[in-house]
């Protein structure tokens, strides 16, 4: 969806990185303590990380924190406006909106990182192959990437989800696969910038096999670009998962979920029950913005 300015200049860690272990590799890229300190000194990063951390805590301990059970119905208490006992009001079934917002963090926070990790691993492998091997591989994969780019991600996603049936695993796999070509494109561009550098010629002359060159030599050097791409995609994954839930292709009711809760209650907006949709909407907006603040800080630090 977006064209990232690839930054091949930032020197990566020269030590070989375990294949595919993105989380570990991400830590390696930022390993020099100076970079961490630079990151922690940025207010945008700290705010973003704090918000994400808040939602992670909600996702893990949601049931313990929530003042009410998110599923408990109090039909006599339905559609009540925010008050002292129900801070965010109640929904048409008398369920506490605050509790549903807190517990609703769970599924989106499970699906988005896993889908993004899947897409990043597959996309990195594909991008390395496209960029380094070139030729027919690049041509064929390039056409495929183009075709996937021509269709909006949300539409491909629900085409496949309708066909396969909705579940958490389907969502992770479908979103992961949709991200693969997008990430591959970025990685390919980063690899092309490295391709003619001396260390690769020496590796080739030493007779290293292509797989080792791709994952052992090139991968550590394009890691900063991949890390930025990962965080950018994480933001889009939140977007995609929330949208699919809203359209009814994600988490199914009565399980609390921001997107599907909004879908269930937005007709109540006209009757003035704004709190049922506004609070889950703000929860999504806060998570997305937080991820973006983190992305922006990492980009700034790596480019500095």
């Amino acid at each position, binding site marked *: *969806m*977006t*064209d990232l*300015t690839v930054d091949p200049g930032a020197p990566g860690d020269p030590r070989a990185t375990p294949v595919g272990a993105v989380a570990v590799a991400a830590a390696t890229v930022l390993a020099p303590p100076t970079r961490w300190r630079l990151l922690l000194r940025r207010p*945008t990063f700290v705010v973003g990380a704090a918000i994400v951390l808040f939602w992670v805590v909600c996702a893990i301990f949601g049931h313990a924190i929530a003042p009410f059970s998110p599923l408990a119905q109090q039909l006599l208490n339905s559609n009540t406006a925010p008050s002292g006992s129900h801070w965010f009001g109640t929904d048409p079934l008398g369920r506490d909106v605050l509790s549903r917002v807190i517990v609703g963090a769970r599924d989106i926070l499970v699906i988005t990182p896993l889908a993004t990790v899947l897409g990043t691993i597959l996309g990195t492998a594909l991008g390395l192959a496209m960029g380094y091997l070139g030729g027919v591989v690049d041509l064929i994969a390039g*056409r*495929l990437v*183009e*075709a*996937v*780019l*021509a*269709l*909006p*991600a*949300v*539409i*491909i996603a*629900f*085409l*496949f989800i*309708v*066909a*396969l049936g909705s579940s958490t695993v389907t969502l992770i796999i479908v979103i992961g696969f949709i991200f693969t070509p997008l990430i591959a494109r970025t990685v390919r561009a980063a690899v092309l910038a490295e391709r003619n550098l001396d260390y690769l010629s020496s590796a080739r002359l030493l007779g290293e096999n292509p797989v080792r060159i791709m994952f052992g030599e090139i991968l550590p050097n394009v890691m900063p670009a991949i890390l930025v791409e990962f965080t950018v995609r994480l*933001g*889009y994954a*939140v*977007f995609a998962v*929330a*949208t699919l839930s*809203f*359209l*009814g*292709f994600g988490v199914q009711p009565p399980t609390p979920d921001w*997107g599907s809760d*909004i879908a269930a209650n*937005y007709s109540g*907006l*006209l009757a*003035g029950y*704004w709190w049922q*949709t*506004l609070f889950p*909407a703000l929860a*999504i*907006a806060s998570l*997305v*913005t937080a*991820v*973006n*603040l983190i*992305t*922006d800080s990492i980009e700034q630090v790596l480019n500095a």
Partner: protein
Amino acid sequence: MILTLWIISLIVFFAGQILPGDPGRAILGPFAAKSSVQALDAQLGVNRPLLTRYVSWIGGLLHGNMGTSYSYRTAVEPFIRAALINSVKLALLAFVIVVPLGIIGGVIAALYAGRGVDRIISITGLSLATVPEFVSGIVLIVVFGVTLKVLPVTASAGAGAGDLNQFRHLILPAIPLVFVLFGYIARMARAGTIEALGSDYARTAVLKGLPRATVIRRHVLRNSLLPTITVIATQTGYLIGGLVVVETLFNYQGIGNLIFKAAQAKDFPMLEAGVLTIGVVYVLATLGADLLLIALNPRLRIGGGE
């Protein structure tokens, strides 16, 4: 380009025809008798071999026959056409608002690159771009439709409504699309302007004593806006994805809403035709942008003209 369309048709066919397994079963549900499922499969022609189905589907498309809807049992084509026209109206309005806004935002950010104004525009753009349309849509409905009551919250003015009235109904649905697109356009306009500002011709213009405003208007903007055109075209694809959400939220009979309803009803022919139409629109938009770029940039006209 033809190749891209062909691959899209394969993806769409694969998702719509192979994955769902038995369409007759999908339509009639798990409790229908086996014989009636088989009868429906035969009637729909889905019990034929895969290759035959693909060839006849593509053959039909090439002759303008997009298939027969499972739900309505009539040709898909009139539905697609009507929905597409509605969507184009909404998309055009969004573009008319966002293109000047995005370009101005990006140029301002570039002129103050690295300073506060630039950071604010960039971060706002990035944040707006990743807030899902239904989230911003709901905030807009709450503020303008429910609290202030200044704009209608449904997209259709109803039959027989005047153009101006219909236009008023489209304003609120267009804004979430504007939000998402603003960031991309501004980002490209910013990058293009920064590049043009650092160029030799911009330096020459400054050194020969032209006022700053003239340099920017005559030398920088003309060159910086070219890449932005490409971005605007590639965002058409996204825009239609956004339409699915916005049209559903505001209950507007566009192509996004049509695809969404078809997906809910497991009406695969309608779904496939709709998604393929989107692919065609995207490819045409990209082609149009390329042609426009060639028309605007003499350097790209290789061997053309005098």
